[in-house]
């Protein structure tokens, strides 16, 4: 095995360790199915290493991986197979704490356009401008979607999501 091969292996392991959780969470946010999210996770990393992109910094790298994950998730949502065999029952989330699981479930019940905004804002700490760039939407739209998502959650969760 050559040095290049060893370096590549290290790089693969490093990137998988660094981003696989994020990719899985984001894919789950879109797909609401852990098995599909795991499939997307594999697809995303295959794409990352196929494209062999160079990045300015880790923020650029992370943003690009988020974009790839969103696109891959949308591809899965569009697939005919998924439309036919959409799971009837909700798949149990791998979250042990009941309250935490309920809150995540409520977020996942939101329309897809709100789910992704909530995830990127509250979990990944992106501001509305950054989310607008990532999702290729207007910042005003993101602000509105965020507001609407909070309102919807308020009706389901006591206290709702805090407005920053």
């Amino acid at each position, binding site marked *: 095995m050559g040095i290049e091969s060893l370096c590549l292996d290290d790089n693969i392991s490093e990137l*998988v360790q660094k981003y696989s959780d994020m990719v899985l969470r984001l894919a789950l946010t879109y797909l609401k199915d852990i098995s599909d999210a795991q499939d997307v996770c594999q697809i995303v990393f295959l794409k990352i290493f196929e494209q062999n992109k160079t990045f300015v910094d880790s923020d650029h790298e992370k943003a690009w991986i988020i974009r790839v994950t969103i696109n891959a998730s949308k591809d899965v949502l569009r697939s005919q197979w998924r439309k036919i065999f959409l799971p009837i029952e909700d798949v149990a989330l791998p979250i042990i704490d009941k309250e935490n699981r309920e809150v995540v479930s409520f977020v996942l019940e939101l329309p897809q356009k709100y789910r992704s905004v909530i995830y990127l804002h509250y*979990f990944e700490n992106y501001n509305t401008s950054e989310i607008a760039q990532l999702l290729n939407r207007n910042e005003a739209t993101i602000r509105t979607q965020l507001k609407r998502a909070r309102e919807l959650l308020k009706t389901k969760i006591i206290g709702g999501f805090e407005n920053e």
Partner: protein
Amino acid sequence: MNNQYINGMNEIKADDELKKTIINRVKQNNAKRLSQYFPRRKVISVVAVACLVISVIIFGIPFVQNRSNRAENAFIITAYAADGTTFKLNPAVDFLLGKYQVTMSSVPGFPLKVLCVAADAIKLTVTDGEFLLWSSSDWKVRNQGKELQIESGETVYWTPLQGSNTDTLARNCTISLKAYKNNQELGSTTIKIESDDRFTYTGRLSK
């Protein structure tokens, strides 16, 4: 609620099995891509080498032959030693051209036989002294001055005498030879002729 969402999402993690599967799939995919890439590179290399070989055959060999002809056939200069024996000069080697004295009655000048198989004309120029042509059939010596054009195989003579002035002898000279074919120069060489105190001339090919 924010914290509960964050804590809940934090529990969602790619387990080791999934990570292992991803790493293996990426490695397999890379190996597959490399195996596809290398044969293509191999094919490109083979085609490039084949093109190079063909180019060498088409252009290189005639060029080398041409150069070889130019180098080897440019000049074969036969010089005459003082004792009358002849020898060829290799253009690449400094070599005594022979010895000549004005008092020699057997020849009108320092004899040089210039042979260039590929050439249809050979032009000679001399810095001092003059060229002579001599035909043994009619025993006439024809003065040619400082420039002369001959054909391959002709014998030309150089004399240190300068025109009608027989009092002064050129002590040395440089003869430039250029071979032409269809007015294109094939090659050139230079002969330097020098004399010692007793006016015995020796020459050597300098180029």
